[in-house]
């Protein structure tokens, strides 16, 4: 699904990734852990094509569709939760079904018509996750998706995400600080 060869990235003179190589198999879930500032989010941004590597290569299949749950929820503030989900869907006939399914998966069905500023921090994070699920990519990039959630919800969402990723026959890279999240969700853990 994904092959990274000798990847390096620097912010000016500060090197955050240095000759990283890894392979992600189809259907595999990889957890990336490491200290703050070690380049975990940068790695996801590089894979998503939002940054250009200083050196090295990222090989992705041409038909890849990336479902990205960013570290911040990044919802459009002028759209309701359901409109935010619809915004990333093409006008497919099953859009309504996908939105309803994704919101139910993260227990946000009741908040569908609310605006982001009417939601708590945790609900915003879940809405961002719902958007990634609704989009139905074949590569999930999840940047600390449970950061604003309590223990109980984290455990529940770990199960939900694992189920959704497998149901979509997708691969995933999840950045997390919590070893318990990594163990519950991932098939493999990479320490940066």
């Amino acid at each position: 699904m994904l092959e990274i060869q000798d990847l390096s990235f620097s912010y000016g003179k500060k090197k955050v990734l240095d000759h990283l190589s890894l392979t992600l198999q189809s259907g595999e879930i990889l957890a990336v852990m490491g200290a703050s500032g070690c380049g975990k989010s940068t790695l996801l941004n590089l894979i998503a094509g939002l940054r250009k590597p200083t050196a090295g290569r990222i090989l992705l299949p041409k038909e890849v569709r990336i479902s990205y749950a960013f570290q911040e929820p990044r919802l459009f503030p002028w759209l309701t939760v359901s409109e935010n989900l619809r915004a990333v869907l093409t006008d497919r006939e099953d859009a309504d079904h996908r939105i309803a399914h994704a919101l139910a998966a993260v227990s946000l069905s009741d908040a569908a018509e609310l605006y982001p500023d009417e939601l708590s921090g945790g609900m915003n994070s879940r809405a961002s996750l719902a958007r990634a699920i609704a989009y139905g990519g074949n590569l999930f990039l999840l940047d600390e998706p449970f950061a604003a959630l309590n223990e109980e919800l984290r455990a529940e969402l770990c199960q939900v995400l694992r189920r959704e990723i497998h149901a979509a026959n997708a691969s995933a890279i999840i950045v997390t600080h919590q070893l318990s999240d990594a163990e519950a969700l991932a098939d493999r853990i990479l320490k940066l």
Partner: protein
Amino acid sequence: MKILRRILRILLIAAFWIGVWAFASWRVGKPLLLPSPAAVAARLWELMQTAEFYRTALNSLWNIVTGILIAVLGGSLLAVLTSRIKLLREVLLPIMTVIKTTPVASFIILALIWIGAARVPTFITVLIVLPVVWTNLDEGFARIDPLLSEVARVYQMPFFKRLRILILPSLKPYFLAACRTSLGLAWKAGIAAEIIAMPRAHIGTMIGEGKLYLMTEDMFAWTLTVILLSLVIEFSFAAIWKRLDRKTPRKEA
């Protein structure tokens, strides 16, 4: 009830200022310098009985509204181009600064020589409003949230969807501010242009003639007409905007 109270409040404030005007006129005691509100209202009523009044008002209204529309369209188009082509922005910036800082009277006199009296008011309105629209929208484009742009990019939103979901809602407050500022400026610049250029049957021409022939009541009556027309345009704009806003996202960035 809330609306009635608001109307009453506006009427009371208006009555206060008309009272100040009436008092000042009584104290000066020379209608040639400062006519009373009653005399001006009577003269305006007299003017309103003639077909010429409406023709004159419509001529000015047409010039200024046309100028605003051309400026808004032109300014928006330029802002789109400068958001894409940075070099064009650098090329345009000095000329926009020159236009904004040069006295409007200088442009009016030059335009009078170049294009003749009839076209001067519209031309001047465009010249004064366009930089305001461009500057606001250029700022709006620069302030589109890069994090939301990344969301649009990652989720491969097609251009028209990106326009509808991200760009237009982000620009909305900047466009609104530009339009509000432009409406006031357009009337000031357009009428000033008419006073100097004196095209036939325009409000500014009537104000200019009022000054020439010391018809102070006429000057005040026509100025009052400008204020009323300007308010009508502003309220119409606010109403249209409110209507459109109901169909577009309610929240701003």
